[in-house]
Each structure stands twice: as structure tokens, then as C-alpha cells.
């Protein structure tokens, strides 16, 4: 417990530093104390919601990744690779095309899409003998590819201007951040982190094997439902706000396990804090790398995540 508190303090300090850097730096320098109203506007109206949304999205994707990995006994499980993010993306697009700008439709359908994709991948990957790495990854690839095709079909309904912003959004983009998106993502991230952390002791057993978990007192069906439900909620909210930022749920829990071991009572809640810092820094890199132009943040996370995925796959 004391160790967890210490780790939390260190990670919160890293997050605070990351947020401060991301608020101050970019294509233009900005400050809340600047005499120039332009710079003040950049700080409060553009950067602040963007950075906070990045933090919420990072926390959401990392905490979901950490919990899904333990539940599925697979360090490669990640919302983006499992197709959960694409399920949410399809839900968001459907909401946009069918319901226009009706405010609750996007997160609601994003959640439904994420939940449906989770259940689909899980049932494709599971056999009577259990679930192996290859089968889970393949099921994720199949579902992701299928959902991507449907998403591309839907984009044909969009005009040229909206198509460009949608393409950016699909890759994971924080430039469209709004305060309503921040509030919604923040609420979902906090609720899901609390729910998933409450399951972390059970996940320590689930991570070793389903039979071990049953034998030592875990109601495995309930834990599975809670983890799939909470991760779909949080991924749905994150994707509705910022598109599919990939690999965050893979990179962050992996680094935490390397640094602090596999105890999910540390890995799951700390993933939320570290994930927030990670996406804030990745977005800062996306803004300054080719300034004044911008990269979508999802491109930066994928650049880092894909090699790690290959490394983990070979190690497994």
C-alpha cells in the first residue's frame, strides 16, 4: 500500500510536468500570464481543453489495456488491437451520420460499439481448451479489419471537408477538443479507473489462469462482465472524443510492469496516471515535430507502439 502511494506520487509529478510542458510549448509559446490576449486565448481556449482531453484519453486507454491484459492473460491485449477502439469508432460514425450532432448519441453508440466488439473478439478467440495468444491477436485483426471496412464505406457518405477531419479523427486526433468532450472523458476515466482497480486483486489470479482464479475464490463470470463493461465504457468515451489513439494500452502497462512488477493493484490504477502523461507528451510531440503543421497523436503513439508489439509477440 505504501509502495503504491509512493509510485502514485512519482507518476503524478511526471503527469504535472507533462501537462505544464504541453500547455506552455507548441508551435507558439503560450502562457496564462501573458499580456497578449492572443497567447492567453491559445492557452485557455485551445491548449487547456486539448491537453486535459489528452490526459483523460490516455488514462482511459491505458487503464482499459492493463485490465484487459490481465483478464485475457495476454500482454498483447489492447483496446486498439482487439478491435474495441474500432467498434467504438464505428458507433461514433453511425451516430454522426444517423443522429447528426445529438450530444449523447456519439458516446452512447461508441460504448455500444466497443462492448459489441469486445464480446465478438472474446467469443471468436475462446475455445474449450482456453485462449492462446495467436488466436486472440488474429480475432482482433479480423474484427478490426471488418470494422475498418464498414467505417470506410460510411466515409463515402461524407463531403470532402468532413472527410479530411474524419480521417484525422480516425487516426486519433486531439485538435478538435471541446470542453464537453473533456467533461465526459474525465467522468468515464475516473469511474472506470475506480471500477477496474476494484477488480485488480481478482485480476492477479485471473492473470495466472481461469482455473486458478475459480479455485481460489474469484467469481470469474462477474469479473469478466465488470472488466469488459468498464473498459467498453471508457474506450467508448475516449474514442468518441478523440478517435482511435492506438497502442497506449499496450505501451503504458508494459512499461509499468517492467518498472514495478505485475501486481495489478499497482499496474491498473497507475496505468491511468502514466497513460495520461504519455498521451499528453505524445500530443506535444505531434504538435511540435513538423510545426506549424500537426501530426495526429495516434500516428505518434503507433510509431512507438508497433515496434513494442513486435518485440512482445516475439518474446511470447
Amino acid at each position, binding site marked *: *500500500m505504501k509502495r503504491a502511494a509512493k509510485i502514485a506520487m512519482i507518476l503524478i509529478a511526471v503527469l504535472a510536468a507533462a501537462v505544464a510542458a504541453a500547455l506552455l510549448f507548441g508551435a507558439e509559446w503560450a502562457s496564462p500570464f501573458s499580456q497578449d490576449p492572443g497567447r492567453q486565448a491559445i492557452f485557455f481556449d485551445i491548449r487547456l481543453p486539448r491537453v486535459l482531453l489528452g490526459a483523460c484519453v490516455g488514462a482511459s486507454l491505458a487503464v482499459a489495456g492493463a485490465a484487459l491484459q*490481465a483478464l485475457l*492473460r*495476454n*500482454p498483447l491485449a489492447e483496446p486498439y488491437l482487439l478491435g474495441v477502439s474500432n467498434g467504438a469508432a464505428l458507433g461514433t460514425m453511425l451516430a454522426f451520420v444517423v443522429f447528426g450532432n445529438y450530444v449523447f448519441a456519439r458516446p452512447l453508440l461508441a460504448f455500444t460499439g466497443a462492448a459489441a466488439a469486445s464480446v465478438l473478439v472474446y467469443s471468436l478467440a475462446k475455445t474449450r481448451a482456453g485462449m492462446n*495468444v495467436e488466436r486472440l491477436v488474429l480475432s482482433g485483426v479480423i474484427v478490426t479489419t471488418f470494422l475498418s471496412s464498414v467505417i470506410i464505406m460510411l466515409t463515402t457518405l461524407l463531403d470532402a471537408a468532413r472527410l479530411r477531419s474524419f480521417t484525422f479523427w480516425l487516426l486519433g486526433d486531439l485538435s478538435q477538443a471541446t470542453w464537453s468532450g473533456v467533461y465526459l472523458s474525465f467522468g468515464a476515466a475516473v469511474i472506470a479507473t475506480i471500477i477496474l*482497480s*476494484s*477488480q*485488480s*486483486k*481478482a485480476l*492477479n*489470479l485471473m*492473470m*495466472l*489462469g481461469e*482455473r*486458478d482464479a*475459480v*479455485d*481460489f*475464490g*474469484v*467469481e470469474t463470470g462477474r469479473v469478466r462482465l465488470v472488466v469488459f463493461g468498464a473498459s467498453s465504457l471508457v474506450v467508448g468515451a475516449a474514442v468518441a472524443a478523440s478517435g482511435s489513439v492506438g497502442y497506449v494500452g499496450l505501451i503504458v502497462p508494459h512499461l509499468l*510492469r517492467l518498472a514495478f*512488477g*505485475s*501486481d495489478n*493493484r499497482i499496474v491498473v490504477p497507475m496505468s491511468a496516471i502514466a497513460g495520461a502523461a504519455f498521451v499528453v507528451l505524445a500530443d506535444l510531440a505531434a504538435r511540435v515535430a513538423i510545426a506549424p503543421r500537426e501530426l495526429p497523436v495516434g500516428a505518434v503513439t503507433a510509431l512507438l507502439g508497433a515496434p513494442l508489439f513486435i518485440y512482445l509477440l516475439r518474446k*511470447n
Partner: protein
Amino acid sequence: MLEARDISVKYGGTTVLADANLRLSPGKITAIVGANGAGKTTLIKALNGAAPISAGEILLDGKAINSLSRSEIAREVAVVAQETESRFPVSVREFVLTGRFAYGSSFGWENERDIEAADRAIADCDLREFPDRLMNDLSGGERQRVVLARALASEGRVLLLDEPTANLDLANQTLMFRLVLERCRKQDYSAAIITHDLNLAAEFADEVVMLVKGRIVHSGKPAEILNAKNIREIFNVEVILDTNPSSGKARVTQVY
């Protein structure tokens, strides 16, 4: 005490265990023997309430096991399953502490009592030298001892062991049986052990149960039922039986 009365288990319409009766009494070790696919693991799973029974009843200290929660069962019944390799780096101590899950809140951290129970189990299983080593860095024998330590840390007084000595060398096989025997004799635990080693069964078990195609065909004291006829019936092999000169127990030698 754990007791199965006329239990049957079906998987998708196929009966894998039929009308089994078994009583695990305090202080006693019961060895479960049978060919591969005879239903031994299913019997252990059913005894633990982890495989749904289609008929009969299982009583744990007089209460129907399906009326108890998983935590309530886990506080009384400890399982040593055939070990599997984890893809996550888990230390010996972390692994043993998972055996205390049933005692805490799901949020919670271990209290002193949990740590004490885990440390005692680690010491009992001769693992004091490496509580911080990673499970995947251990040898097969060491890992199996850790799996037993977790079961002992749970303080469940009924031990169910599913082939705990498979893949172990001679010294580790004996050590596993000795550790279980000690708990049974000194602390009145009861144990059921699945094993293919009839000599270990003869040496350490108080009762032997023989399974053929999901049915218990013989049960009783090792000296009574470990005979050439019964062994031929369950394994379809010829054996010679004599007496182990060091212990005076039955000794089984296969004729090739």
C-alpha cells in the same frame, strides 16, 4: 469434511463422471488413479464445485457446495492444479499471496495475517531462499512446490491435488507427498491426490480410488485393492506385486 454422494458430471450430453461416491476424512490421504481420460480431473473439479454436477450432491462440512460462494469454498478447499506458465513476471511471494484472495476485500491489500500465512507456507515448502525470484525462472520442481505453497497459504483444510508430481524428479515427488502427509497427520487436513505413480499411492495413501471411464470401480485400502487384476482392469498392463523391503508397503513393477 468433503463428501460426494452419487455425483455425475456431463459435458455437452456426454457423461464424463457417473454415480461417484467419495468421502475425504480429516487426517487421511486418498489417491485417485486411472488411465488418461478416466474422469479424475473432472472428479477433482466437481469436488471443488468448479464443474457443474448433473446428479447427486457434494457436501462440505454438511453444507451443499452449490449453496456456497466461491470465496466460502476457497477458505475450506485448496487446489493444486497442474501448473501452467504465466506470460507475466510474477514473483514467488506474489504468487503465494494470491492464495489469500478469499480472505480480503477485492480492493484490499494483504494484512499481517495473510503475510504470516504466506511466509509459513513458503518456509514449509522449503522456498525460503527465493521469495523474490520470478516464477518463470524456476525449475519445474520448484514451481510445483510454489503451487503447493499457495494452496497451503490459503489454509483450506481439504487439499485437492491434480497430478502434483507429474514432471517432477524422484526427490521432488517424495517431497510433495511428504508435505501433504505432514499436513494430514499433524493438522488433520484431508487430501485427495491424482497420481499415475502406483508406488507413491501405495506408500502414502490411506485409501485408493480407481476410476474407469468415469466410474469408480474400486476403492479401499491400498493393500486391498492394489492387485494385478485391478491394475490390469484400469491400465490394461501386466504388473508384478511384491513388498517394498524398506517400508513394508505394496510395490508395483510393470512387466514390459
